[in-house]
């Protein structure tokens, strides 16, 4: 009886009443949706900047009026970008560093995770994990000071040691040679712990009876790793690997901007697309070139992610991103 009443009231109610649930849920999605619209989707319209010769309009120097009065130049910004040495350097650096990060970022954490799993005392393994994971939570600014404590030209530990020994002092922040290694080392130092924990979680999930069976059949530890552990990790390794390949045009701005302490002498080995986009815009003030480089990075990255995702889908349907 009562139920019937409710039902009839709902039928006779207004559109607002009938869609109440959807409207309430919409109101919950609204803050993030509005944020995305303003800070992510609206700027996508700014892509046109890459095809314009952005000039300040002296009569009305607001951004919109500048944009409207700037001339369309087609692909000229891109052509100009590739005539400079910068384009070659930043694309080379971004891709090469990422390739090294991806390869070492698989081998080292997997090796460490396998070793960690063999530690018999669990609280010791926990301690290792806690220590290794720590750098992941620090900012690149802090890491740059950690490194500076060792390399600082005047007071750093290494130059001080050289000075004490009467040797010639290496000026670390102006010598290009060691920087590819320093960058790779800094990146591994900060991120290996995180990835190791990730792989360790996957290894702990492997059924222990598989190892026991293998051991009873006379498999050595190496064979157990080779035929039990690695095959179980294959999916997660390939997915992380391919997802990283998808991000090959993106560099970690903080790493390349802060760790070399913004030293101009090191640009040829530390300049990546992200730092170029920032410097062309904020330092040189070249909006058109900066936009062109940024757009190129986004489009290439987009293609790479789509490609990577297609491959992941073939390996494991559930693990694909979309």
């Amino acid at each position, binding site marked *: 009886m009562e139920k019937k009443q409710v039902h009839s009231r709902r039928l006779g109610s207004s559109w607002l009443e009938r869609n109440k649930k*959807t409207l309430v*849920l*919409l109101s*919950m*999605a609204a*803050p*993030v949706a509005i*944020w*995305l619209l*303003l800070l992510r989707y*609206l*700027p*996508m*319209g*700014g*892509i046109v*900047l890459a095809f314009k010769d952005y000039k300040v309009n002296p009569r009305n120097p*607001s951004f919109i009026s500048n944009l409207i009065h700037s001339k369309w130049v087609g692909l000229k910004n891109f052509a100009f970008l590739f005539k400079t040495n910068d384009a070659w350097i930043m694309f080379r650096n971004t891709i090469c560093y990422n390739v090294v990060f991806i390869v070492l970022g698989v081998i080292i954490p997997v090796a460490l995770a396998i070793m*960690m799993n*063999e530690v*018999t005392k669990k609280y010791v393994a926990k301690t*290792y994990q*806690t*220590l290794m994971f*720590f750098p992941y*939570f620090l*900012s690149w*600014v*802090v890491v740059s*000071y*950690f*490194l500076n*404590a*060792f390399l*600082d030209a*005047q*007071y*750093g530990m290494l*130059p001080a040691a050289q000075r*004490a020994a009467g040797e010639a002092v290496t000026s670390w922040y102006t010598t290009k040679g060691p920087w590819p290694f320093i960058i790779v080392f800094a990146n591994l*130092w900060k991120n290996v*712990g995180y990835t190791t*924990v*990730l792989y360790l979680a996957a290894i702990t999930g492997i059924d222990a009876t598989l*190892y*026991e069976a293998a051991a*009873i059949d006379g498999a050595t*530890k190496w064979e157990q790793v080779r035929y039990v552990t690695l095959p179980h990790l294959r999916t997660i390794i390939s997915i992380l690997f391919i997802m990283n390949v998808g991000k090959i045009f993106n560099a970690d701005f903080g790493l390349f901007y*802060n760790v070399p*302490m913004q030293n101009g002498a090191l640009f040829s080995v530390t300049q990546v697309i992200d730092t170029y986009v920032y410097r062309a*815009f904020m330092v040189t003030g070249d909006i058109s070139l*900066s936009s062109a480089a*940024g*757009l190129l*990075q*986004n489009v290439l*990255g*987009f293609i790479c*992610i*789509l490609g990577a995702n297609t491959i992941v889908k073939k390996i494991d349907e559930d693990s694909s991103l979309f």
Partner: protein
Amino acid sequence: MTRKRKLRLNAVSPGTEAVIHVILAAFSLCCIIPFIFVLIIAFSSEESIRAIGYSFTPLSWSTEAFRYAFDKLPQIWRSYFNSILITVVGTVLSTLMCAMYSYVLYRPDFRFRKFFNFFSFFTMIFGGGLVPTYIVCTQLLGLQENYPALIVPLLVNPFNIIVMRAFFKSSVPLELIEAATIDGSGEYNTLFRIVAPIAKPGVATIALLNALAFWNEWYLSLLYIKRNKVLQPLQALLMELQNNVQYLNQMAGQLGAAAIAEAAKMPSQSLRMVLVVLIVVPIACAYPFFQRYIVAGLAVGSVKG
């Protein structure tokens, strides 16, 4: 007895395990030693640094740099306050927004679920780039030289939405939502009184990730705080010191001869490291407690990252 034998059967030889311990211990130490080094430098006396450089065994110890930082440089207090303010406000807002959006995506009966899912996801794989985003923030939204500029651009992270939704899915059965709705619970009530408490580890994970992101923030300050530098959080202050050791004096309003005289007295080398210590110590103290939440979050969100 059998358990013991099993363990021995499957354990590596003691020699191999020793090698493993050496490698793992070496890497673990390598991860923590720079922090210890910086801590030592912060407590080294300026004379020792001038004489033998940064060293694990300084000639003499001193808390001068800490005292100087807090007595003579009010900007450090202000920046500390800025960092805390940004972290607290940013974490609360971003976690709240993320929870609401994820809850909507988790509801299979929501009519526009697919659309909103794609709406947030697409921004993970494509964007307008730095220049247009900067222009929208400064010209349209007025995010420049103020606190919102240090908070708003970092409020949403689509990756966190995916992780939070995965937490909801794995810990809250849909029948519970249905039951709550039948009992007359509104959507907001259901989310905050029923879903969030059950998915507490998930909410905690996201809140921690957000707090770390805000605490470690320097990029937004680099972009949006150009003149009103008193708003700089600690990280940005530290970054400014990279190429300008005199920056702290300038901030204290000292110029000309007075600045040079003061700069001579300032323990500038250990002072920089004092700032690093001030930033890292809160993380290091909270770290043992939040580590397990982050690990739990990793397990849920790892593959979909």
